[in-house]
């Protein structure tokens, strides 16, 4: 068992970095510093452009690279095997993986292979004495739970990077030593065959700067037009709570929440949304939250910066008018 914490990524992400990399490196760096662990970054597959720069910025000691051609695109069995072989060779104490869609499958599978414990939905990490403690989200975001690593020497941790902030250190930059890690993927055959790839064109809710979201308080599908109108006026995207999506008022790609999209807009306006934590997990990272609800005790007002108590059906069109300068 080595004394290392390894951030592990494999996707290309956007803008030159894998999704959640900086946030996860922030967590890892702080843990490495406080627990006296070596901080490494394992990048499997082709390395996005900014990896060397960011690795240096966060004080990564070893930038470990697995460059097998089978890793060019994500394939679960291949990915798990490559990471498992790395863990076999390097025996990291902690493996931190940004909790992307694919990571949710890879992380526990890797833990099983590596004889490690696994904790997902992690928001905080600490090593106290010799005990690894992970604070994770539970009950749809309603509670926090602390897990301790008690029955294994190492742990794989899925980090809820979408809900964390990246915090690059001042100074402390390093010149990471690149290590080429060779793996043997000859025997791996993907057991799940992709017949039709997911295909998404158009703006992504996760990247929207302005989101106007509607909940069941809007009453019926046709009222959702008010959300669309305001979103358009603000140059943003319309979104919804889970029950709205389940009722078919809007496509599931616009669902905000723990099992939907976790968003980080500059402005999040929620109308007719009660504010259940399942939903709020999807937007608490917004810079400014505005809530409109008939019920002055609605939970969403506890999260909001500005609130209007009233009928969304009356207020939304007025906001749209005011935005348009009418």
């Amino acid at each position: 068992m080595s004394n290392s914490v390894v951030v592990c990524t494999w996707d290309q992400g956007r803008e030159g970095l894998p999704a959640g990399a900086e946030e996860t490196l922030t967590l890892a760096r702080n843990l490495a510093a406080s627990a006296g662990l070596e901080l490494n970054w394992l990048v499997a597959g082709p390395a996005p452009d900014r990896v060397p720069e960011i690795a240096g910025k966060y004080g990564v000691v070893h930038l470990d690279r697995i460059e097998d051609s089978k890793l060019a695109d994500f394939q679960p069995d291949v990915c798990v095997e490559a990471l498992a072989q790395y863990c076999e060779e390097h025996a990291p104490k902690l493996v931190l993986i940004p909790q992307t869609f694919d990571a949710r499958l890879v992380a526990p599978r890797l833990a099983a292979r590596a004889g490690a414990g696994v904790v997902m939905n992690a928001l905080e990490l600490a090593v106290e004495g010799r005990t690894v403690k992970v604070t994770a989200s539970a009950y749809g975001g309603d509670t926090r739970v602390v897990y301790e690593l008690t029955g294994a020497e190492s742990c794989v941790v899925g980090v809820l990077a979408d809900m964390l902030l990246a915090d690059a250190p001042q100074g402390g930059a390093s010149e990471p030593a690149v290590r080429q890690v060779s793996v043997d993927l000859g025997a791996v055959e993907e057991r799940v065959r992709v017949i039709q790839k997911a295909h998404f064109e158009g703006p992504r809710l996760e990247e929207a700067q302005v989101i106007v979201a509607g909940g069941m308080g809007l009453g019926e599908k046709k009222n959702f037009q008010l959300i669309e109108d305001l979103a358009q006026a603000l140059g943003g995207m319309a979104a919804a709570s889970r029950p709205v999506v389940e009722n078919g008022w809007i496509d599931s790609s616009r669902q905000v929440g723990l099992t939907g999209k976790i968003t980080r807009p500059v402005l999040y306006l929620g109308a007719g949304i009660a504010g259940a934590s399942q939903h709020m997990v999807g937007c608490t990272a917004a810079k400014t939250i505005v809530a409109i609800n008939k019920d002055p005790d609605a939970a969403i007002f506890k999260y909001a910066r500005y609130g209007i108590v009233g009928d969304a059906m009356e207020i939304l069109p007025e906001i749209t008018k005011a935005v348009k300068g009418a």
Partner: protein
Amino acid sequence: MKIVICAKQVLDPDAVDNYVLVGKLEIGDDGKTLTQKSIPRLMNGYDEQAIECALRLRDGGVDCKIHVVSLATDPTKMLQHAVAMGADEVATIPVDTGTVDGYATASLLAGFVKSLGGADLVLCGRQASDGDQAVVPALLGEMLEMPVVTIARAVEMVDGSTVRITRVTPDGDEIVEVSCPAVITISNEFGAPRYPTGMRTMKARKVKPQQVTPDSLSLGEGGGQPRVTMTRQFVEPITGSCEFLQGDSPAAAAQNLVKRLRDERVIE
């Protein structure tokens, strides 16, 4: 075909949410257990959808035996509901879920599947709405050496041993195929589970789930001991300071808001 569904009994997450919203969720002296007796226990919603998945396969003509298993001290009522929905066999592994982690849970469930002589499909909800960890199905796949396909909104048999699954990904639907045996997790987009008739529910009340003790199962390396332990659970206080914007009319309040957002450069 043998289909096994793993069902977890959880505290009603909506009830938990309601208590949290009014700041009254009770956590016991052990610092982690939710102790409100007024919160009902029910079957994890996604697991109920997993049962529905098996039933739809059967309705579609797949000749199958449907087993539902649960790790819990007493999930009898919940398993009777599974029978009423249409499950053939139900079993309890009498273990307090507060004493096990995902790894131990998966070990016991894998042991159960092996005790049946294997399964063609193992169906699970995508996550349990109490812990949200979503690790058991993936661990099961590793222990049973089965491929795992997660977050399914539709499942159909293409032929006797090939399954076609539509997955809900952040980039839209993905369609995959996998050969049985396989583990599949079901997401809420799958659709509402059927509600059994009163007649079926009454009949199911006579069913006693088979008791399967951990000792009777072969648990693999490590004997199914937990690797992580939950030591604490708490509610993080939400410290918000909402400024309520008023007006004589909806229009006035709205204009007030827009002005504020412009002044603070939140919008143009």
